């Protein structure tokens, strides 16, 4: 019979076609859906993450793993109530106004989601007001901004100012990233965190959520 380990391995290998059968077997065997999620699917992604970070897995492989996990999730979601789906926290992410670069942002989202965060993708070219509106609407724990251009990085500053003006600053953590961004710049504009890539960004969020 399938084990939780088999499910993890299936996620690691990105075997999209096989995950459903395995998960179904476990469901049928009466294993708690939450256990299947945590110790099967998510456990698999927990192996993926460090392999990606150390360069042993490529992004397309990680994406296959994530897809595999999601495929398994589809079977499990109906079996649990919404509140039970484990989420580490809610994040909204967008690329700032005037900037269309989104490959990095999209990778980030993929990694965040596969590590258990609920992510709202605002897209690219996001104005200050739109960040504010999204915070009001989604009440996230963390707001992420991405900028790849030296001529748009200052929008991160104005967005933070706008969020402060609207009295929302204290309710959220703000993280930023993108090629021209540095730790120092993050400190200058009063962001809570910076990270240079998707893997460390997840770790950053983990630290923030437990702090």
């Amino acid at each position: 019979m399938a084990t939780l380990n088999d499910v993890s391995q299936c996620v690691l290998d990105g075997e999209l076609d096989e995950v459903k059968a395995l998960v179904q077997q476990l469901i049928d065997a009466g294993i708690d859906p939450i256990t299947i999620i945590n110790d099967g699917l998510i456990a698999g992604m927990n192996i993926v993450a460090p392999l990606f970070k150390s360069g042993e897995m490529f992004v397309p492989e990680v994406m296959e793993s994530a897809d595999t996990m999601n495929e398994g999730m589809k079977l499990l979601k109906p079996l649990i109530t919404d509140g039970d789906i484990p989420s580490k926290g809610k994040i909204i992410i967008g690329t700032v106004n005037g900037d269309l670069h989104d490959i990095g942002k999209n990778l980030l989202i993929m990694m965040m989601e596969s590590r258990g965060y609920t992510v709202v993708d605002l897209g690219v070219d996001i104005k200050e007001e739109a960040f504010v509106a999204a915070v009001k609407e989604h009440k996230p724990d963390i707001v992420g901004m991405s900028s790849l251009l030296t001529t748009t990085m200052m929008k991160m500053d104005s967005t933070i100012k706008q969020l402060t003006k609207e009295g929302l600053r204290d309710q959220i953590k703000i993280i930023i990233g993108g090629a021209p961004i540095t730790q120092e710049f993050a400190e200058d504009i009063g962001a809570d965190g910076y990270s240079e890539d998707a893997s460390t960004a997840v770790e950053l969020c983990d630290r923030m959520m437990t702090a």
Partner: protein
Amino acid sequence: MVKKFNQLAYSNLDDFVYGSCPNPVTTKSGMVIGGGTVYPEINFTLPGMDINDTTIKKACTIYSNIIDGVLKRAAELYAPGVLVEFETVPDFTENPKYGIEVNRILLNSMKEASEKYGLKSAIRTTPNDLREFSRPPIMRHGKYWDTMLELFEQCAKDGSDFISIESTGGKEIHDGALVKADIRTAIFALGVLGVTDMEFLWKHLVGIAKANNCYPAGDSACGFANTAMVLAEKGFIPHVFAAVIRVAAVPRGLVAFEQGCVGPGKDCAYEGPYIKAITGLPIGMEGKSAAGAHLSPIGNIAAALADTWSNESIQQVKLLSEMAPVVAMEQLIYDCRLMNAATKKGQQVMFRDLLVDSDAALDVQAYVLRPDVVMRISAELVKTQDNFLRTKIAAKLTVQELKKAINEGIVKSDRRDMKWLDKMDKAIDSIPDDAGEFYEQMKSELDMTKFIPSEYGLK
């Protein structure tokens, strides 16, 4: 009238070398690009800042300081001439008056440098492709299209020597294909969407250039192949995938020349050597000189066939000696001096081969830039005039070349590379030879929220 390229511009590998080409182009100041001398091509950008009506004056001062600084240093180091590239960041295209003003500042300083130091220079104006600001992109009309053309036209009128663009048609589909390392979708994006958009776009740009005593220079698959390279350098996608994308981007790039571009090709278009082999026109290239803009595995080999040698881009920030663009100018000039010194002694082929030997065996992306590989694949590409089919063939041939090279142990490879090459090989074989048929197959797979078929003349 569209040009046809049905044979190689070179018959002898020993003629295929940096600094010269069968069809050189002469700038207003008399620099002959491709006429024997490699010229530095300097690029620069603003430090971190907002652009709006209150800051634009400051931005102009910065551009003015940059250009004066780099031209002064070029004169001090006796550069035979300098190609300046003004590649706009979006604000300067969205507000054409900003872009026009900066372009004039640059032109003006170039004129002053000519009077003051006798320094020859020319300018390539490269507005960014604004059309992608609509999501999904509107490629053939609308305010972004109009604004962008306005900038092109006025800069051409004001005296720019060359116009270029790094156009993005098809990128909305290609981005996703890249991170998934999905070669079928990538070939669709490059060979169907990219090619079609290039035809449309460059017909217009060539028209503008011709009407204004300006040269249409060339395009770059930067948003496709350089993005792939950057992702590969970060270890995100396989190097072999990036190498295949590079060559698969050649037919797309060629379209600009079919439409009338005369070179120099865009600096960041690392597919340039293929363009040069096929068209005999001069190309811009960049390598170790551009490390401040992106790291790469092709630092030296990129120079092997360069007619201008560029730094891609660097912010106006202070280094210990001087502002970064001045530092870049100095480095470009020394690199060019060395290449030109070899030419003077008749040792250019030997020097080209050193540039090649430096990198070709260490990375598959360098390997596909080997002049002999370039000639071999290009010779196949000119056999058809169908740019979609060319794209498919380019990908297929590259996969084969790389398999062979890896098997023979003449290029370093990752243990996972063969698997990926096999995967790509199969996927490419599954692609029909007819673009229309391919589109029908792809329809179900494409994310239709991301692109508008009619913007590419598709239904």
